[in-house]
Every structure is written in C-alpha cells, then in structure tokens.
C-alpha cells in the first residue's frame, strides 16, 4: 500500500518500473477459483464441449450412418458380423447385435437356436447356407438407435448443435439486448419510454407462435433457429442492462466523466458498459441453458433441426418414445444435457458471487 509522502523526483518514468495493479477481473477470477462448485461446473462444461468437438472424429462412425440390422442395440453389447456370400462381387456384410442374433434363426426350433447363438457367442465361426456368422470387434459405447446409428456419435454431434444454438442465440440476444438496453438507459426520457414499451409489446407476444411464424415464412433453417431464439431472449437482457445503466448513471464517476466534457459515446462505451459487463456475463451464462431448453422444446414440437442432423432435444424426444425397450436412447443424451445445464448454472451462480462488487475488498 502506498504511503502518502510528497517526494519530488524529476527522474523520467520508465514503464517497467510501474507497479501492476490487480484489476477487478483478476480479483473475480481468484474468488471464482475458490468456489469449488463453480469450478466443477466450468471444468465439466469445458470437458463436455471438448468431447463434442473432438471425439466424433474418433468414434469410427458418423452420426448418420445407419445399420438397420443393428437396430436398438444396448451399450457395449457384443456385435457379430454376417457375411452373405454373393454370386458376383464382394460378400454383403452386415452387423447384428447379440440380442437380435436369435431372430436370424427363426426357422429352427428354439433349442437349436440357443445352441447356435451360444456357439457364435463363444467365438466360433458359424456358417449357414451362404451366411457366415462371426464375432466382430465393433463396439457401440452407447449402443445404437432404432436405425442402427451409433448413439455416442449422435449424442456428441447433437451436442455440437445444441451448444452452437445455445451460444449463438445467446450471442445474438446479448448484442441486441445490450445495445438496446444501454441506449434506452443512457438516453432516458422519451427515448427510453418508447424503446422499452416496444420491448414490452414484444414480450407479450407468445414465443412459440412467433417461431412457428418465422419457420413458416423462411422455412426450417438451422441459422434461422438461433436467430429466432435470440430475437426473443434479447428482451430480458435489454431490461437487465437498462436497469444497471440507470443505476450507474447516477454514480459520481459518471458525473465526473460528464464534467470532463467527454462525448456521450465515450461515456457509454468507456465508462458505463465496462461496469455492466459483469452482469452481462452472468446473465449470458444463465441464458445459454435456457436457450438450449427452448431448442429442445422446439424439437419436441417438430420445429427443431432437420433429421438426420439432431440435437440433444431431438435425441431425447426420440429416446422418450422407446423408453420401455431401449432406455439408453433416452438416458445417454439426457445425462449429457442435464450435466451441461447444471454446469452452466453452477458457473453462472459462481460468476455472480465472484463479480459481485459488494464482495470486493473495501
């Protein structure tokens, strides 16, 4: 801490001699690091995001690659290949899961079927007619869906979509909301009233109807999806930013900035908005899960992404329909989705505590 002495040193100042300060961001980061729950949220979320981005290249399957014979196989179920020799060309290869293997030999009596399945399961090669059955090395970590598509790849690719929609829509809402709210709050008076009444009117319109209308007008478009969601979410952001700006406007350092004769745009962008960014970050972090949920709802309604592309919402929808027979189709995407929502919420809460000006040392 500095002591107040008046020393007269006319020596020139060298930039490297200056003591670096700890900005409020660094302060907040230290506080965040001590919050274990928030850190858990942060790391979990980063892990999930990384998995979604990278792992699909390594699973060995694509999200759309179907294998009907593998319909709805359970996670890590043993898989067998059936090579059907053909008169001309390569034998046709298909894959069958252990649970469906019995169905291949329906013409035989039951005792025979069990014996054959046991034989193949133990590793023997079994031939019947033109078909050769043998163990395969293929594994589906999360199993497959009714069309035989690898669930792990679908969940991770779906994650890309969900997260992209979440962040993109939030970005749109932040951009519009901050500009709108900051302008309304800073201008005050009639401009403020008009801008916020307009937002109020929009707020009263039912979200689903608007999205349906937009979809009808412009077709089911992936980009349109997050523009539509963003166009709805900005309203809350605008309100929050406006409130913050209004309370900041009366602070003495803003009065000081005005007294210095600084132009309005400088006051808005250099003095007001940087002090509001904390709230914006917190609110944005908490908006992403909301947006992802909205996207899931849209998928339930059939307005979401087009198949074969899917999001977690779509996967959960599909999975919920086959809940009784193949529960993994619901559980796997649901776990990822829930974990992501929890993580972002924990992180958002942690950010709120870390960025709270009242907890900064004074």
């Amino acid at each position, binding site marked *: *801490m500095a*002591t*107040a002495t*008046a020393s007269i040193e006319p020596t020139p100042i060298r930039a490297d001699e200056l003591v670096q300060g700890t900005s409020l961001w660094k302060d907040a980061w230290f506080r965040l690091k001590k919050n274990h729950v928030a850190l858990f949220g942060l790391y979990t979320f980063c892990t999930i995001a990384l998995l979604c981005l990278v792992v699909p290249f390594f699973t060995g399957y694509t999200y759309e690659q179907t294998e009907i014979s593998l319909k709805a196989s359970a996670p890590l179920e043993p898989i067998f290949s059936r090579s059907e020799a053909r008169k001309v060309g390569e034998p046709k290869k298909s894959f069958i899961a252990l649970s469906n293997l019995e169905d291949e030999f329906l013409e035989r009596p039951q005792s025979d079927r069990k014996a054959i399945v046991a034989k193949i399961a133990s590793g023997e090669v079994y031939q019947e007619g033109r078909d050769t059955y043998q163990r395969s090395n293929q594994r589906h970590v999360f199993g497959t869906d009714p069309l035989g598509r690898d669930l792990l790849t679908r969940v991770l690719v779906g994650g890309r979509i969900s997260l992209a929609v979440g962040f993109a829509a939030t970005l749109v809402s932040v951009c519009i909301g901050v500009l709108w709210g900051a302008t309304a709050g800073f201008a005050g008076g009639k401009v403020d009233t008009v801008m916020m009444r307009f937002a109020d009117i929009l707020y009263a319109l039912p979200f689903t109807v608007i999205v349906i209308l937009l979809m009808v007008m412009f077709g089911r478009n992936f980009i349109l999806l997050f523009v539509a969601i963003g166009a709805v979410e900005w309203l809350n952001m605008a309100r929050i930013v406006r409130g913050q700006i209004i309370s900041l406007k009366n602070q003495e350092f803003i009065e000081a900035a005005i007294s210095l004769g600084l132009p309005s745009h400088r006051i808005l962008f250099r003095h007001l908005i940087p002090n509001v960014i904390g709230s914006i970050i917190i609110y944005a972090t908490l908006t992403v899960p909301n947006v992802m949920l909205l996207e899931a709802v849209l998928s339930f309604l059939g307005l979401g992404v087009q198949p074969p592309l899917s999001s977690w919402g779509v996967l959960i929808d599909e999975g919920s329909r086959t809940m009784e027979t193949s529960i993994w189709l619901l559980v796997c995407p649901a776990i990822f989705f829930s974990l992501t929502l929890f993580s972002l919420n924990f992180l958002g809460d942690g950010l709120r505590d870390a960025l709270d000006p009242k907890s900064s040392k004074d």
Partner: protein
Amino acid sequence: MALLEVENLRTYFYTRGGVVRAVDNVSFTLEQGETMGIVGESGSGKSVTCYSLLGLIPRPPGKIVSGSALFGGVDLLNCSKEQLRRIQGKRISMIFQDPMTSLNPYMRVSDQLVEPLLVHDRMSRSQALTKAIASLEEVGIQDAANRINLYPHQFSGGMRQRVMIAMALISRPEILIADEPTTALDVTVQAQILELIRQRQKDLGTAVIFITHDLGVVASFCNRVNVMYAGRIVESAPTDEIFARPMHPYNASLQQSIPALHKKGQALFTIPGLPPDLTIEFRGCPFASRCAHAGEICKEQDPALKQIVPGHKTSCIRFQRGEIADVRIKNFVSAV
C-alpha cells in the same frame, strides 16, 4: 461498586484474510449515572466493544475470545441466553447511528415502542400505550398521541432518532449505549439530540456510554473519555484532563489535526501513515509506526494501561517511563 466492570475483553473476527483483532484486551469500569465517552476512528474497535457486551457480534466470524463484563453480578459475556435477553432492552439499551435502518419500517411506531414493555414488564397493551405516548412527549415530539400511530418513514431523521431514544429509555434502563447517534444528523439537529440525551440522563440517572469519533461532542457531553486505537484503550481520563493534559501521542495528534482548533492559514498537523492493519499481531505499540515520539522500546515492549495520576491512565510506554514530558507535537513540518 461500579455499575459495569469490563475486564480483558478480546473480540476477534476469523476471516479469510486473517484474524482481525477488533478488540484486543480492553478493560474499563462505568459508575452509576456517569457519562463515559469512547473515542476513536474507524477500525479502532469502539463499536465492537459495546456490541460484544450485548451479544450482538455475529458468530461466526466473530468470537469473544476472552474477558468478562460484570453487570449486577451477571457476567454478560458468559451467561445464558435467557439471562442476557432479560437484560437487553430493559436494563441496558442501545441506540444506533442510522435512524433509517434502526427502526422496523413495517411496524408502526406505537407497536415498536410498546414491544419492550409488553415483553419485559408484562403490561397490558393499553397501559403500555399510555406509557409510550408519555415517553414520546418526554423526547419532545409534539402531538404524540396522534403521531404515535405513524410509520417510521413518516418521521424526519431527527424525529426518528428521538423515537429511538424514547424506545431505548422507555423501560428506564441503568445503562444507555449510544453508538454514534448523531453522526448521520445535521449539526443543528445534533445539538438538539445531544441536549435531549443530556436532559433525559439527568432526569433518569442513567449511565451513558457514548461512542463517537468527534472529540468536540465528547468535550461537551462526557464526564470521562476512553481513547481507543487498534482495538485497545490508549488513554483514559476525565474530560478536562484528556484535553488539558494529554498523555498519549495519538490523543494529542488527533486534537492537533482538528480544524476547529486552528486559525486560517495555520497548517494542520497530520498523522502520517495509515490506520493499522488489524490482522497483524503487533509487537510493541501499534501506534509506533506513526508516532513522532516513538523510540526503540516502543517497538519491543507491549504497552499496558497504567495510572499516572488518579483517574488518568495511559498506555504510552515512554510517557510512563518519564521519557516524554509533553506528548504534543511541536515544530512539525506539516505533510500533505
């Protein structure tokens, strides 16, 4: 027998930044009907001392590490919750600095005034209400019978403080603790409130502990003064003595830095340095780093309050040893 005897009070706060030794070995006595002032700047521990007596310290993070406070045979720091509750508000009351937040904004003034009577004296509501109206009149609120039904926000700042005083004195306590009751008020209103407290004290014979940072208020109001610094009492004396013959450099420095005692153009004395960091355990005197009279011994020996002449104690080591005759700072080069 003294009314209140506080001995070796230590209240520490255990925080992430360290242990804050807010009150570090404070002892004092309060006689019947006496007005005692506790003077100090922010961080000196003056408020925490009195909050400790009434069990108002949040624990965690606070903890009364040691000490005793004997009041009528009961040790306030080591008694049951029930015993303390019966004393609070009835035999020892407190008024606080901010009249805006000390009254419950959702309750009418009448309800707040009768509450201590209903709880402690077990009166009927109509009896309590009569007494409450009388107490408002005693503190100079006009038209009390009607205004008692108003809400706190309908009173001005000065009036609210009067209501607080009425509330505090309504059960005729033996001790009134006033924590900076006039700091948030305008100067003319402050004069009114001080006059009021002085008057009520005379009528009721209540002892008053008056906490303030304003030496001027202390000069007109208190019989005795304790000066606190860094959680300890550094000087204790009757009011006249504190001003006429200061025996601790901090006390002298404070007096010499007040504009009221200076002529225009006469440079004010400034105490160099910053208020102490209470998380550090001091070796020697906590004021040594800022003291113009500091010597080697001040940094090594732990200071203790010692009586120099009857009634006048100081903890300045060098003064105790007779090494300094006058603690006032002469010929200072005023720093800016």
